[in-house]
């Protein structure tokens, strides 16, 4: 009886499998061709702050792969750490009428008018990681406000007076008008509002520069020997912050954030950082590709829709550090060759 049943079941299922194979053979993916057609032959201009550090290099490597696959052109115009050069690059790009312009803003103000002009000319604009106060078609990047909240909460946890600590923390900012600084500060101050568990004894900008970060941190530690924690705004800059802490031989909790290149993990390993909030630049590259794909397929006009793809945060500490916690820029670029 059971044997009979088994045989019947096998027979039935093999018939079903065979029929599904037949069906797959005849069925065409209807949306594949229009999608590929929408992307093929298009032009995307990318204006990064500078093609000289892990974030834009990582994004560009991931974007290039997708561009090659779908046959659209990725044109990189380096702003080389100058808002003037960047504005000129965008203005020049507008006259060439590409399909999409992607920008990484230095601050929330400088590019605003130029980006509006691009959209008025019918060019869709994606902003990456560092947004402008002017909203364009898409934003892809870190959730600065959320990172600020996370860092502040961590400080409450690690350094709060109620935890028996001094409650004194310092903040090492980027340039005061950069999106990363503005929104992160927002998140920090809103989290700490109304609590006297934590006191911010210093909040200075180190201008994304390690040496400056180190100098400031040394002075602050000297001034407040019972400093308990520091929130830094970028891991590359905070290599200097961490160096000053190591030198002071004090136990100060340094939380910072960055694109998650291998230098971040090395920092955790060498005790330069206590915690890194990685917004995973490699993953952001994929998000940018998605945004490009969506905007190129969409029939809507520039400025019609506004959406954001916030990068998921990955918290890296010594206790959860693994070999693949970070990505490796050299290897990423290598795979493109």
């Amino acid at each position, binding site marked *: 009886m059971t044997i009979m049943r088994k045989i019947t079941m096998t027979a039935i299922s093999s018939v079903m499998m065979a029929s599904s194979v037949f069906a797959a053979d005849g069925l065409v993916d209807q949306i594949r061709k229009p999608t590929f057609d929408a992307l093929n032959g298009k032009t995307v201009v990318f204006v990064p702050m500078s093609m000289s550090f892990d974030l834009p290099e990582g994004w560009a490597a991931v974007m290039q792969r997708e561009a090659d696959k779908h046959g659209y052109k990725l044109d990189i115009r380096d702003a080389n750490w100058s808002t003037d050069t960047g504005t000129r690059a965008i203005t020049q790009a507008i006259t060439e009428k590409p399909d999409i312009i992607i920008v990484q803003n230095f601050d929330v103000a400088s590019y605003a008018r130029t980006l509006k002009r691009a959209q008025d000319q019918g060019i869709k604009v994606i902003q990456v990681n560092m947004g402008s106060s002017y909203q364009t078609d898409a934003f892809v990047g870190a959730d600065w406000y959320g990172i600020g909240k996370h860092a502040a909460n961590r400080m409450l946890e690690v350094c709060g007076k109620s935890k028996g600590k001094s409650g004194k923390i310092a903040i090492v900012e980027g340039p005061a008008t950069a999106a990363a600084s503005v929104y992160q500060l927002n998140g920090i101050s809103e989290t700490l509002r109304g609590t006297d568990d934590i006191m911010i004894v210093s909040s200075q900008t180190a201008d994304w520069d390690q040496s400056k970060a180190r100098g400031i941190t040394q*002075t602050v530690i000297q001034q407040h020997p019972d400093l308990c924690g520091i929130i830094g705004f970028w891991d590359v800059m905070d290599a200097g912050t961490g160096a000053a802490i190591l030198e002071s031989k004090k136990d100060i909790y340094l939380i910072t954030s960055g694109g998650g290149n291998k230098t971040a993990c090395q920092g955790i390993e060498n005790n330069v950082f206590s915690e890194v909030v990685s917004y995973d630049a490699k993953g952001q590259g994929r998000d940018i590709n998605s945004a490009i794909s969506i905007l190129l397929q969409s029939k809507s006009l520039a400025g019609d829709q506004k959406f954001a793809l916030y990068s998921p945060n990955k918290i890296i500490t010594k206790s959860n550090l693994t070999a693949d916690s970070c990505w490796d820029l050299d290897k990423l670029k290598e795979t493109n060759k």
Partner: protein
Amino acid sequence: MTDNTKINMKLETEVTSKQRFVIKQELIVALAAVGLFAVFSFTLNNFFSAGNLVTLVRNVSVLGMLSLGMAVVVIGRGVDLSLVAMMAVSLTVSIVLANKGYSFPVALLIGLIFVVLVATIMGFLIAYIEIPAIFATLAVSAIIYGLGRGVIADLDVNNIPNDLDWFVFLGRGSILSIPVSIWIFGFTALFVYLFLQKTGLGRFIYALGDNPETARITGIPVRPMIIIQYILSGLMAFLAGMVTAASVASMNMRIINSTVIYDVLLVVILGGIGLSGGRGGVRNVLVGTALIGLLLNAMTIMDISYTTQNLIKSAVLLLALIIDALLNPRDEQTAQQGDI
């Protein structure tokens, strides 16, 4: 009174008036520094503590070293705007090579050779082709920055390999509870002082800064001396770069785009080393560095915003220049030569 003694007396009065000029400007800045120091000591908690004063000096030791290099060139009636680029790119050369597997001392040596080579070419352009120093050094600065960004390295921040404890010691270690970087700054200051005051070459630099034509007639090899000046400032840049790289375990080429080179010029000019050449010395650099260091330290302690800090720094400098201009009105000589 014979003609000879008359001439001698005239020479003497000239010398003393010149000396007074130097002392005056230096004195103003020194007084400003002492005044600020007193005010901060009374108003800021923990300002007047051994720890903070050590931090203060250490934070300006790199600026001080660069200024020493600039001072040598300015005394010889030149200017070296390539200092910061030299510092950043030469160390980047070393770090990139080290990361490619060269042993670090060898990599440093190659960085050093790079500096000497570039400085020699730059000095040659200025001394023999007679390109004004301000343009030659600016051009060289741009060229080596381009080399650094385009050819030597892909990224502008390059980290030194792990486990270079002896090197990191230069930036983070202490000897007799004074940081090594302060020792290095101190020894370089002493070296430059001895070089300028006690050696023939040093005196030649004053001579050629004071009056190149006379120096040439007197038989001083003016052109080779100019090249030596730039090599010296290049070496200072390399040393400052080593201390910077050691302290943050990396070198950041973005520093070339920053205002550091202007800070260096300000230290030199503020300290009282006239751009017309032939005047000043190590003491002026120390005074200028001290004033800048005091300002930076106090403003960080007071938690003043970056923009306001720049405003205050510029205002103090402008004030010093105004006082200097009032006390030392333009004379015929400066009118003829101009300030640069």
